[in-house]
């Protein structure tokens, strides 16, 4: 009996040790930049990032016609209003565009490029294939398609593309997930290929508040809300990071935030941010290049 108890205890101890091993290996994939400061004494860097999936993601998910129409709003109306909004504030934003958006809304992408906003990768058709050869094909096709509009290859992506592949293709940053408030380095599951990540949080993402059935959510899960409430929440996020000397990535979708009531809300939000000194409105590429130049990753592979 006592032997059995001892055996059980050592088995439990082993389970605990195994969990710790897994977690430590996971932790080792991250490298934070706690001492991060911004150029010219700025107190906060703000990235506005627009995920331009419009009707393409609705199409990929095989959603019905009125959902496609809802997505079309992004390419026909919403993206133009966002360009106008950012331009009116002299802000350069980053537009994460799937490659095939080039075949759907070429005029809109031309306008994005004309206004000097960064155009970055958002997968070929909002999906990263499992097969490595097809994944590479998608990444290269997207880079070529976007280059035709931007005049240069994208250097950033919002995707789960393999970090090794991204590094090989000259990508400087990814913008996914929220393992830290500030930009940080992340390695792949094998602990290799460190890549700078510009984090965004799902609570600073317009679709979470406004888009019905977002990410396949059922009716009982809907909590669609109004812009005043989101204004208050996002201002609180900005203010907290402003005082902390941090970073904020605000994620919008042209088919969501391009609606008149939300453009107006963003206009108020930006106007209020601009009342404070030391707010650096930058593209993701600007933030990435600053971090890479001043806080390079420790290559311990």
């Amino acid at each position, binding site marked *: 009996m006592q032997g059995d108890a001892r055996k059980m205890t050592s088995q439990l101890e082993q389970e605990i040790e195994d969990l710790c091993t897994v977690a430590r290996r996971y932790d080792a994939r991250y490298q934070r930049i706690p001492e991060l400061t911004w150029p010219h004494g700025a107190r906060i860097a703000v990235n506005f990032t627009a995920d331009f999936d419009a009707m393409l993601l609705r*199409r990929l998910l095989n959603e019905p016609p009125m959902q496609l129409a809802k997505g079309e709003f992004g390419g026909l109306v919403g993206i133009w209003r966002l360009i106008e909004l950012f331009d009116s504030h002299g802000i350069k934003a980053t537009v994460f565009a799937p490659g095939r958006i080039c075949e759907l809304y070429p005029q809109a992408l031309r306008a994005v490029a004309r206004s000097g906003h960064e155009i970055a990768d958002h997968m070929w058709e909002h999906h990263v294939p499992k097969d490595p050869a097809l994944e590479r094909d998608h990444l290269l096709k997207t880079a070529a398609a976007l280059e035709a509009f931007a005049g240069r290859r994208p250097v950033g992506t919002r995707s789960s593309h393999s970090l090794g592949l991204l590094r090989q293709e000259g990508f400087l940053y990814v913008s996914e997930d929220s393992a830290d408030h500030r930009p940080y380095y992340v390695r792949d599951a094998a602990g290799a290929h460190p890549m700078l990540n510009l984090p965004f949080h799902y609570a600073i993402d317009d679709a979470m508040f406004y888009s019905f059935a977002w990410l396949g959510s059922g*009716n009982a899960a809907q909590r669609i809300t109004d812009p005043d409430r989101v204004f208050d929440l996002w201002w609180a996020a900005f203010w907290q990071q402003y005082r902390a000397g941090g970073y904020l990535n605000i994620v919008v979708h042209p088919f969501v935030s391009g609606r008149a009531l939300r453009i107006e809300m963003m206009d108020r939000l930006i106007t209020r941010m601009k009342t404070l000194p030391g707010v650096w409105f930058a593209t993701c590429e600007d933030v990435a290049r600053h971090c890479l130049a001043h806080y390079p990753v420790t290559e311990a592979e």
Partner: protein
Amino acid sequence: MLLYRHGGSQRSASPQGIRAEDLTHPDAYFAAHDGLDQLIALLRRFAIRATFAVPAVIAQLRSERLRDLLADGHEIAGNGLKHEDVSSLSAVDEKKRLDLATDILTRATGQCPTGWFCLPRQEDPFAGGTISPNTMDLLINAGYEYMGNGLADDVPHYWVTDFATRRALLTLPYYYHFDDQWFLLFPRRGTGLEHADDLFRNWRAEFNAQYKRGRQFNMVLHPGMVGWAHRLQLLEDFLAHAHAFPGVWNPCSAECARYWKATYPPGEYLRLEPSIWRDHAGSLS
């Protein structure tokens, strides 16, 4: 600027459309009586004309109420035979339903409806309304002037059914953030929470923003939902807010459609470019 409202008078329905239990429920009684009375009175107070999208079964059941609405200058438009989901029906079956619904509405009102709605129901998985691949063509063939709930723009726009011939149906804007049914004890009584205040703020924010842009505001109301106490009060507050703005035009949907087609005729304003969507190996075709 346009301000119109419409709404069925049945209890929130499911994709199969209005069932006996939807009509034999205290909420259904409220929707067709006290709720509708309250809404009519409020619209009258602000001299607002609305479009009522009425499923044929409701038109037949409540024809005396439709006459009240017409007497107040409101428009009656179609909204399905039973507000059913037509997306998987054959074209033949869908046409039969459309024709019958048109007949019933014509008999009930003495005039042929010119507008048709495919409004969403609370139990739909998406909040945009459902159509079949044939709906728009059938509506054009049946002589309808407009479809009342599109999502691709926030002003009227043309829904093109054939690129070569430029065959198109005028579509009026809809957006679920201005539709009461997604905010009021959604998804059904006893679940979710009451977000009438969010709904009010959405109306106000969109109205203000669209007024500034010189565009359009529309909202969708269900008499059985918005007609209740605090919700009615918020609607009144909103109407009082909007009423104070100069230069707001309030046509019903049919008038808005006529205005749009006369001012922006498709022959002149529909600038279609050929699709450049290509086939790629390993991609969506």
